């Protein structure tokens, strides 16, 4: 891969997240695996950045580093200009950086009602608002994701559909209102009809709450739809970055081209055997 121009050392004022030569290595000796390989980037405030790549390219590891669920082997991650390792108060970090994961059912506890779990978000805050305000803010967050609060009263996670649960995860974000949201494949477990609405909520978070969003996905199509900037990852490195239109229309890296080719598009031959391949299989 060609070396990218080194970014200017002086930091513009609204850089939210910055990575400087971040690497994460698992194992050692023969089993050594470099999951994230000297990655550097700057993410501006109020920007949606997509990390796109095939399974195993290191995008989830990078997301975990940003969440501080894991620590880089080398390099530095800065949040608002401060090293995220330097933050001693984890609660404060999680107030500012939150995540939405792939599987909403494993993200919620099966044994508590959804409402009580949403209310427990307020434990993260320094001061807990009075119960009446807690209830009102939970209701408002639920309405923000188009769910009538009465519908989920007394319900447990397994009583809702995947699409609804994914919206519950987003309702949490509407309550906590972090500065940065890491969305790790939030749409891969929901069906195509709910997918469009999940993406709309992400854009709403950016627009209304001025949130910075890191969107992790394997589907370039989704990434182009939501994001302002796309990073293509391959084998732990960012091999291409740019605006969606530029990445889609003039991909530089062969990895990007391959990712684009692999999306089934109804107007292009995909399997190399003509349309309605089943018909010709005889």
């Amino acid at each position, binding site marked *: 891969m060609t070396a990218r121009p080194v970014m200017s050392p002086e930091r513009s004022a609204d850089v939210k997240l910055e990575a400087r030569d971040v690497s994460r290595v698992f194992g050692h000796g023969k089993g050594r695996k470099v999951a994230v390989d000297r990655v550097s980037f700057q993410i501006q405030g109020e920007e949606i950045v997509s990390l796109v790549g*095939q*399974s*195993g390219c290191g995008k989830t590891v990078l997301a975990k580093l940003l969440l501080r669920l894991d620590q880089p082997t080398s390099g530095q991650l800065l949040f608002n200009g401060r090293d995220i390792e330097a933050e001693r108060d984890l609660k404060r970090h999680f107030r500012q950086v939150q995540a939405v994961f792939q599987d909403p059912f494993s993200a919620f506890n099966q044994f508590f009602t959804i409402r009580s779990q949403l209310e427990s978000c307020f434990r993260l805050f320094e001061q807990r608002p009075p119960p009446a305000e807690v209830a009102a803010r939970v209701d408002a967050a639920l309405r923000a994701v*188009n769910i009538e609060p009465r519908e989920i009263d007394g319900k447990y996670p397994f009583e809702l*559909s*995947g*699409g609804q649960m994914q919206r519950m995860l987003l309702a949490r974000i509407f309550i906590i209102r972090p500065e940065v949201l890491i969305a790790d494949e939030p749409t*891969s477990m*929901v*069906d*195509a*009809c*709910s*997918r*469009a*609405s999940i*993406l*709309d909520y992400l854009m709403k978070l950016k627009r209304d709450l001025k949130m910075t969003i890191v969107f992790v996905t*394997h*589907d*370039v*199509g*989704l990434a*182009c*739809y939501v994001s302002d900037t796309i990073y293509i990852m391959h084998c732990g490195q960012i091999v291409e970055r740019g605006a*969606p*239109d530029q990445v*889609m*229309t003039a991909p530089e890296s062969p990895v990007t081209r*391959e*990712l*684009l080719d*692999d*999306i*089934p*598009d*109804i*107007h*292009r*031959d*995909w*399997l190399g*055997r003509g*349309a*309605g*391949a*089943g*018909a010709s*299989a*005889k």
Partner: protein
Amino acid sequence: MSTTPILDVADLRVHYRTRAGTKVQAVDGVSFQLAAGEVLGIAGESGCGKTTLVSACMGLYMPPLFYGSGSVRINGESILGLDREQHRKHVLGRKIAIIPQGALNSLNPTRKVRDLAADMIYSHGDRSGKAEIEERLRERFTRIGLDARHVLDAYPVELPAGTKQRVVIGVSTLLNPQVVVADEPTSALDVSTQKSVIRLLFDLMDRQIISSMLFITHELPLLRHVSSSIAVMYAGEFVEHGRTEQVIFDGRHPYTRALMGSMLSADPGQRGKKPVGIDGAPPDLKHEIRGCRFAERCPVARPDCSGAEQPLRTVAGRAVRCSYATAEPGVAAEPQMDAEPQMEAQP
């Protein structure tokens, strides 16, 4: 299409019985035929009955799923009503086999791939020797593009997702079943692996290892490349059933159009075209529904839609369950654009 169909499903009705005793009519009067070399794609959102239809077609009736009425025939022979042992030995795996939805979790993690695959042969009454079976497995696993020696000796957890999916396909098709049911075989895979897995399925069809396929998915654009015909399912019924190009490019049922409208496209020309999710949820099948089942969420519903029973009727060469679908393209979904002066819904 004049030859007898391989799979013939006629007016199949199955239901679930909940613990409270209510009956949920999950599949309600589904009929279709599948000829040799054909791939039928079944599309619909979560909870529309796709997976239930699969179990019903395979004859897997285990409580709380119960058989109601209708027939399922493979090569003219009914596969329903056999006793369980007969069914397992002679139907499953031989006539019809499934590639399950959570294929990545469907391999027993405590056994090597070799033993899992050999079980498939032994459990169907084959008493071949060990060496012979080893030979067969090697040959088949090599054919599906795997490093047979390495894979057969591995435990499922040691294999990457794409390879695991290939192993599942390999084991499912080991006895050369006539019909393969692929129930969302690629929804857990990334786009690149998805492509290679689908290539493999077609390769198996080309080599006559399997003769036809039912492909279940919620991704309509994928079906454009995979299937020869498509059935769109909603609330236990087929709402539109026709050739692939008809359904994809010129859907006549409002639900088909809504489903297509909620898809994102990576096509630069389509960028900026906003995908529209379908609001609301499918109807609760615990209650009997009168009239059109999609009426509540239909963007072009008219006042009489929810009262009138909607039979499948032929419109522009395909079957559609909407009384307002017409022979000219586009009429049902965009009432404001066409000049049809019939009873107009709300503006």
